């Protein structure tokens, strides 16, 4: 059963799963390759995402994979003024920022960010304290202990699902303990991070076990390597696989999806919710006239 989530007072109903739109202010992220690096291009991407039905935008200032070094100041410069502008344009939109650094978290919360997406699983333990201080939401991730911006190399788990459940719930309980509002805490199995493709597939196969923790589950699946490896497709041919994974995880109770393709994801989630009965069809005239 999905529960309502709330980030700095902005409440999101969960009649259907939520869509978190990725907007990268980076020149080198793996999928968009700098398409929204420029300030105005990124603002347009937010407009488009909202028009397509995004519930949350997730702003990133550093690509996840290894590459050129981005210092704290530069990451703040890429994210904080942008958050200011998005907040001005969309007073009610939930704004998330994807960062592992507490200095960045503080800078963006001052500018009105609602949610800190700590993709590197508490690599900087002060980031969750910033979420508590600003009463912002917080995403608890799982990387198997990987350092930020590193790739997996022969990573191993006795039981990857157990590892994810244990680590993300431990972080969620810690976040709640130090004052992060409990209805703003999400857990994310963090596909591909510190995992090979079989690990990532197992986590989708057992979405129900993540949902059973009681914490709302965020799934970040969009166009990732595990999709490409599963289908044997390159980067440009991963959307269909992403949407298939999205449909199954939604059916199993995931609360939110972090995505590149907002409109297609919304359609998939609305359709799944229609099938499960959580959402009324948009129109039902057929055979009833």
């Amino acid at each position, binding site marked *: 059963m999905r529960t309502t989530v709330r980030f700095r007072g902005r409440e999101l109903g969960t009649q259907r799963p939520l869509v978190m739109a990725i907007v990268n202010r980076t020149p080198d992220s793996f999928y968009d390759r700098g398409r929204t690096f420029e300030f105005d291009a990124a603002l347009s991407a937010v407009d488009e995402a909202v028009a397509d039905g995004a519930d949350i935008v997730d702003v990133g200032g550093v690509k996840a994979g*290894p*590459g050129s070094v981005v210092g704290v100041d530069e990451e703040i410069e890429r994210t904080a003024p942008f958050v200011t502008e998005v907040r001005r344009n969309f007073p009610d939109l939930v704004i998330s920022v994807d960062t592992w650094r507490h200095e960045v978290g503080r800078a963006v919360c001052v500018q009105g960010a609602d949610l800190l997406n700590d993709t590197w699983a508490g690599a900087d333990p002060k980031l969750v304290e910033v979420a508590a201080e600003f009463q912002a939401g917080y995403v608890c991730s799982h990387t198997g202990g990987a350092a930020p911006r*590193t*790739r*997996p*190399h*022969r*990573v*191993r*788990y*006795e039981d*990857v699902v157990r590892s994810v459940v244990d680590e993300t719930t431990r972080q969620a309980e810690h976040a709640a303990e130090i004052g992060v509002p409990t209805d703003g805490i999400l857990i994310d199995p963090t596909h591909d991070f510190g995992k*090979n*493709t*079989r*690990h990532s*597939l*197992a986590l989708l196969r057992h979405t129900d076990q993540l949902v059973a923790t009681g914490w709302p589950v965020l799934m970040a699946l969009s166009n990732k390597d595990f999709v490409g*490896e599963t289908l*044997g497709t390159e980067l440009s041919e991963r959307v269909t696989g992403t949407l298939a994974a999205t449909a199954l995880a939604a059916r199993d109770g995931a609360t939110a999806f972090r995505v590149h393709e907002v409109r297609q994801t919304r359609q998939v989630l609305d359709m799944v919710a229609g099938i499960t009965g959580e959402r009324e069809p948009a129109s039902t005239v057929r055979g009833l006239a």
Partner: protein
Amino acid sequence: MLVAAGVFPHPPVLVPGVAGQRSADLDGTRANCELALNRLFDADPELVVVLGGDDRTACHGSDVTGTLAPYGQATTFGDGSARLPLSLTIGRWLLESHLDRAACEFHSVAWNATPAECFRLGERIADRATQVALLVLGDGSACRTERSPGFLEPDAIAYDDHIAEALRGGDTTALAALRPETAERLLVAGRPAWQVLAGAASERSPVGELLDYSAPYGVGYFVASWRFAGSSPRSGRAERDRAEALTE
């Protein structure tokens, strides 16, 4: 006394099927592994010691199981009581069709073992039987290109080239001289195992042959075969002194 040695890579993808449709990428490397294995057994060892890196140094004996389950693949080799680390699991897989040719033992060496510790372990392993063959699992740098698991370190390929030359030349001095901190920085998994080989072979005169040196996924893989000319042992003092000096 060491009568033969073989050096092999140990990525999970060496086992056919693990990489799915891309398994064929390593067919050539597998064939060279088989060649090196046959040369190892041609030396008629009474004991084959399988040696690879792990979190700790240990002798696992011969009653062993290797499994790729922690890597998401439910494949096991053997049904013994001791569970092997990845490097030795790949060694156990390599031996699958050779198990009736000699007695086998599985030893791990700690990733952080000092050169001197590795060297002495090699000397002890060589003394375990009259005719010992060493099956060494060790990989080169995982930082060779921007697409490597460990991204790019500019000196990674030169480092691997140096290893390839040492394996080709049976150069125990070069292997004994490898510095742990460099290997760690370049994500080189083979350093301790190669230094055990250096210790085991230090009193012989190795004749090396490099059968394979490739990096299809950005990690250096080597297949090498060492045999030993003549039967008279020589002193391994120079290599031992070098290893001791590096450890101090």
